[in-house]
């Protein structure tokens, strides 16, 4: 039987506010346990929440970026359940009246087409703390630093049909939230967490199959692997005559195995009701318009512009435009050197190679965009060759100064004085009698190939600094003169 996969995503995205959604404690990552959990976060008796304006603004930004309806009246509800990382015994969330209503994003498929994925809603809520399971005399330790960090939970329609599409969708949402500056999107620190709902159904069937939820996939790779694994599992179960149980599964990226979470004794009854400590959040068109005016260029618009303005290929533009940090690095470098194609080649080639080796992102590059531009200028004005430029870049990466400083210090300036080049050429020809003889003996149409040897010798003798074009020209002229 042919099966069709149906996938929906729930993405929990931490908002990059300074303070928590309902308290004045810091949201910084990595502090000592419970040092960023204030009286409100700990749910001390008598404490009350007050809503962070930045969290609202960021959620509205996201809604506008996905062309969604913005909830002019949104309401915080309490989702009641007991868990040690949930200090109040309820999570403040939004059920019936979310801040962001239906919207959509477009993803690019491998065949070059675009597919629209619906976003059902995105609502504001507070993050929970963390339970640490290493052994404290058989007990667990609770750290509430993360409790109260603002989240938007972005819920997709079940429009996604493959693991690849799911990853493309998640990456697109990731690119949007980082472009908006509303999240650092750091998956390893849990700033961007994906839960995946997967079901399968016979191709052509309208009705959905029973779905499972796989939780907390903290990389796009794990997400793709986990979906493929789950789809295979479901197919195996159904083809063996079994049924899919609606359950929550945990995927372990290291072992590449998923398991069902301990089944709960009863279905959760969250007893949602409007939080009486918070009032409805009312916003008007003026507020929305003011935020709309601050929206930066979004990845889709930037992609189109890069292709148009810089004449980049789909592939090059796709990589350079996806993220704000890469895009602005690229544009700064182009501004500095005036050659988009050259800048693109360097960013996708040498620069990416060094970043990958160092395991860092573009914004942490020791060579700034301006500095790279300075290097590219020297290629364009023939001060150095492309090969020498790689040496210069390596030195720049290692903190040895600007392109000009490195070229100067290492004496890498290209030799373009034809007199000087002719002297080196004469020297090489004089010292290579056997090769000159072979050259002379060869058929004229084979001589081009033999030129390589002399080129190498001249470049070597010049310390790589001779202008290769000039060397080629002079060599050819002199050798051919010998043949006459």
């Amino acid at each position, binding site marked *: 039987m042919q099966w069709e996969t149906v996938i929906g995503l729930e993405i929990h995205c931490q908002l990059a*506010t*300074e*303070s928590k959604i309902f*308290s*004045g*404690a*810091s949201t910084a990552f990595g502090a*000592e*346990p*419970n*040092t*960023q*959990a*204030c*009286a409100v976060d*700990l749910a*001390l008796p008598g404490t009350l929440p*007050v*809503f*962070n*304006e*930045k*969290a*609202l603004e960021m959620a509205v930004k996201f809604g506008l970026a996905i062309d969604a309806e913005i909830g002019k009246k949104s309401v*915080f509800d309490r989702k009641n359940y*007991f868990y*040690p990382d949930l200090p109040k015994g309820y999570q403040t969330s939004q059920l019936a009246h979310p801040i962001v209503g239906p919207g959509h994003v477009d993803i690019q498929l491998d065949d070059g087409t675009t597919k629209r994925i619906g976003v059902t809603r995105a609502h504001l809520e507070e993050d929970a703390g963390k*339970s*640490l*399971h290493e052994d*404290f005399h*058989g*007990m*667990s*330790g*609770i*750290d*509430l630093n993360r409790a109260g960090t603002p989240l938007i939970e972005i819920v997709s329609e079940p429009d996604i049909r493959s693991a690849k599409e799911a990853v493309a969708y998640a990456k697109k949402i990731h690119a949007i939230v980082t472009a908006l500056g509303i999240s650092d999107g750091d998956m390893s620190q849990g700033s961007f967490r994906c839960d995946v709902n997967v079901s399968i159904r016979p191709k052509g069937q309208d009705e959905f199959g029973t779905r499972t939820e796989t939780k907390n996939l903290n990389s796009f790779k794990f997400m793709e692997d986990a979906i493929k694994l789950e789809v295979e599992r479901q197919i195996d179960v159904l083809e063996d005559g079994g049924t899919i149980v609606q359950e929550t599964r*945990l995927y372990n990226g290291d072992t590449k195995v998923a398991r069902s*979470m*301990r089944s709960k004794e009863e279905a959760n*009854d969250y*007893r949602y009701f*409007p939080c*009486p400590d*918070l*009032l*409805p*959040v*009312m916003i008007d068109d003026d507020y929305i318009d003011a935020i709309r005016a601050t929206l930066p260029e979004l990845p889709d618009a930037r992609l189109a512009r890069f292709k148009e303005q810089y004449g980049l290929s789909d592939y090059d533009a796709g990589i350079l435009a996806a993220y704000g940090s890469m895009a602005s690095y690229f544009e700064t470098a182009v501004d500095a050197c005036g050659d988009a194609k050259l800048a693109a080649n360097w960013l996708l080639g040498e620069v990416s190679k060094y970043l990958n080796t160092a395991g860092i992102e573009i914004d942490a590059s020791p060579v700034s965009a301006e500095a790279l531009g300075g290097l590219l200028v020297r290629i364009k004005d023939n001060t150095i060759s492309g090969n020498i430029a790689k040496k210069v870049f390596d030195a720049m990466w290692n903190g040895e100064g600007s392109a000009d400083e490195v070229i100067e210090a290492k004496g890498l300036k290209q030799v373009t004085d034809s007199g000087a080049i002719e002297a080196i050429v004469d020297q090489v020809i004089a010292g290579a009698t056997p090769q000159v003889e072979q050259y002379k003996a060869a058929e004229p149409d084979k001589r081009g190939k033999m030129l390589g040897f002399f080129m190498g010798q001249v470049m070597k003798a010049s310390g790589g600094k001779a202008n290769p074009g000039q060397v080629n020209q002079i060599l050819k002229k002199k050798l051919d003169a010998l043949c006459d």
Partner: protein
Amino acid sequence: MSLDRSDVEKIAHLARLQLDDADIPEYAQHLSNILALVDQMQAADTSALEPMANPHDASQRLRADAVTEQNQREALQANAPATENGLFLVPKVIE
């Protein structure tokens, strides 16, 4: 609406309340009496009314995004039944 033992047990579980077995019949009786009182609401016609969550038709005030709280772990954990290395300890959490 009258509640029996199993109803009371279910609700007590939902609310994470241990009840003495011997007390359950009395809880069932009291809760049933309260629900009988509460059920008087059903006679009222409320079809034209919007639910009211708060006395005022006010809207949520917004707080500036600023860190105003400093680390007070020691003071805030002084009441904690069990802590270690700054963490609150609970019986093992199994996911």
